[in-house]
């Protein structure tokens, strides 16, 4: 019933719109007189607003009727976003791809991810760094277990790679600072692993986060979101190999790398499960119904998050095959301006 009505209405609206379009062949932007132009523009805007309101009202009414009649609610429309209209990418990993798994077994990180080697991270900086750089490194040391800070001095990065190989490090992280602000991030897998070069932005340090927590020394849990393509998969594995593979769950620490539109968001949280009094949990709309349905006196267990540690955003600039070598290096992936052909094309 409701659906039919709605369709009719939408049809009639469509008819109206067509008629309207016939009438207004002159767009407001084509009118040269400013007063007229703005008047017509305002009128159009008002019309649009009314239409929108009408639509929303109709939708609400349909929903309400469906609720009253006990019918199924009309399906909620999914808004179009850049992510879900993403351009088709054939490199997206498929779960039934045996070559992918064979490739995983053969790649540089598999020995760490299979727990044959324990990750040991060397953190260093660029030649000169100050102010926010050291602070970030202090916080990274608390985020990543088994991380060791070494002063950069005046050593070449290639020399540092050699040194770290001798000392059985599994990865090197270099934080690059420009004008007292960290702006780049390099992750080098050792001994042969790839070198990922990121741009670092939107850094918020722990002390600038309101109500921040202080992390414990437990091994964190790791959340990697949306690393879908082959390249993303590889980056995800390189990030995964920075952390120990067995999280210490009593520590309730989570480190998140969330990829969205090729930007990797880093967050560090501590979570807690709390048995709240029912009164406080009922303050949220839909949950109240559930709670009532259960009607259990001891109340609900809810998860609360407390953010601790830094917050920053990474964007991949290049992925190099082999360890750091700017001159003779081979790139697996480099960002080139010619690749930015669409907002809906993503690489990770």
């Amino acid at each position: 019933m409701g659906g039919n009505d709605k369709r009719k209405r939408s049809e009639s609206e469509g008819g109206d719109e067509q008629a309207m379009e016939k009438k207004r062949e002159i767009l407001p932007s084509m009118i040269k007189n400013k007063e007229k132009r703005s008047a017509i523009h305002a009128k159009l805007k008002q019309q649009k607003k009314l239409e929108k309101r009408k639509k929303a009202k109709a939708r609400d009414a349909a929903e309400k009727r469906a609720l009253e009649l006990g019918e199924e609610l009309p399906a909620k429309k999914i808004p179009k976003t850049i992510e879900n209209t993403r351009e088709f990418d054939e490199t997206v990993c498929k779960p039934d791809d045996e070559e992918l798994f064979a490739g995983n077994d053969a790649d540089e990180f598999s020995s760490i991810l299979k727990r044959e080697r324990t990750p040991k991270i060397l953190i260093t900086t660029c030649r000169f760094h100050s102010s926010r750089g050291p602070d970030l490194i202090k916080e990274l040391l608390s985020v990543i277990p088994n991380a060791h800070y070494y002063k950069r001095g005046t050593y070449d990065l290639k020399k540092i790679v050699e040194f770290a190989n001798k000392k059985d490090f599994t990865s090197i992280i270099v934080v690059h600072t420009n004008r007292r602000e960290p702006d780049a991030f390099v992750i080098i897998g050792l001994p042969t692993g790839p070198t990922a070069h990121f741009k670092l932005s939107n850094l918020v340090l722990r002390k600038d986060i309101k109500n921040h927590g202080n992390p414990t020394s437990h091994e964190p849990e790791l959340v990697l979101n949306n690393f879908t393509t082959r390249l993303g998969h590889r980056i995800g594995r390189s990030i995964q190999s920075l952390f120990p593979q067995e999280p210490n769950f009593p520590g309730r620490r989570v480190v998140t790398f969330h990829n969205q539109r090729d930007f990797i968001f880093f967050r560090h949280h501590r979570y807690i499960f709390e048995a709240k009094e029912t009164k406080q949990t009922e303050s949220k709309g839909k949950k109240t119904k559930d709670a009532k349905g259960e009607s259990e006196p001891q109340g609900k267990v809810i998860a609360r998050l407390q953010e601790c540690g830094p917050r920053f955003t990474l964007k991949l600039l290049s992925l190099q095959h082999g360890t750091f070598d700017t001159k003779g290096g081979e790139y697996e992936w480099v960002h080139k301006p010619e690749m930015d052909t669409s907002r809906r094309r993503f690489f990770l």
Partner: protein
Amino acid sequence: MPRTTTLDCPGCPPLRALTFDELGLIKVIEARGKQGRAEPKVVERWGDPDSSKCVLAASIHDRKSDPLLAVARRNGTVEVLNPLNGDLRFAVSNASNNGVQPEDDPVAGLHLFAKKKLELASRSCTLLTCTTKGNASIRSFEVNKPSADVSSTGSSRTWSIGDGGSILCSKVDGSENYFLLGGKRVEMNVWDLDSCAKIWTSKPPPKNSLGIFTPTWFTSATFLSKDDHRKFVAGTNSHEVRLYDISAQRRPVISFDFRETAIKSVAEDLDGYTIYVGNGSGDLASFDIRTGKLLGCFLGKCSGSIRSIARHPEFPVIATCGLDSYLRLWNVKTRQLLSAVHLKQHLTNVLFYSNFADEEAEVAHSAADWPLHEDERGEGETPPMKRKKSKEKKGIEKDAEAKSGNKESFEEYGGKKVKSKKSSKRLKM
């Protein structure tokens, strides 16, 4: 509606390409089809994924009857396959006698001889392998058809060519008498394969104006034409492309820079003066080597190091592959991307199987009027103009050309090309 940017790939002529990757897989890509607009697809996959079988070098000998394909793997075996169905003919171990692990001394160059190198029975094949540390060997094998067992005839020769450095590139010229190699701390060498003697060594360029000497590090090399072993092109790690002429001098005749990352592959065109250069960050360009001028870049969102370039023997098509795990096919004349195939692994090598187009013609000779051929003919009228121009230019820049015989060879080559075109026409009739 979302704006999309899917590249309109015009498709490519019927061809068959073989790619080799880091998991030891061999994939066969075929474009068979109508009107030259075929979409290439992976037709077959040979082998099981195993990282120790990573393909390091490959060489094909595609005669019409009984073609052979040689593949060198990281675990030190050299396999000889049938490129039509992937059957293993035989496999030999490349392990040397002095107890060096094959993983420590991987194969850097492999060549399967088309001609009979050493006078032997008809069913034999001859392999030249060259390892990174400089152990070269020529071995002949007799292929016994029923069982895939191999009897190595006694005529194997092994000699050492390395002098401390590691060899990265090697090539055998068209007449298969000369062998070219170079690498990290190894200058370009030309060896005579009959006598296994070094006949020529290059000399590093002088220090620059600041007194800085760039260490020798060749990454790729190719002979300029099939008939001429005296001229070859080499790419270096310091993003330089150099033309050497054995008969002129030991220093490069021409050298020029290309972009800012190491040159990873060079390939020659059939015309004998165009070369294709691919580098470590995925840039591909063609150069006229007589003048060192850039003819144009191949643009197509290519983002991974280009490991291998192959020129199709008949169609104006090149194939590239590399670390971005795409096989890309390009039109040489328009420098347009014809199509790209995602092959999931880091690729190391690509080869064309050249008799495929003929087969296709036989299969579908009724509808054999490929428009691409027409295109080729249509465009065929423009290049001669260019060629004329370039000849005039050449007359001016005689100093750049150290050899006078070249012109003839180029012309010869052009003539041949015309012939081949004619023959293709005849095929269609």
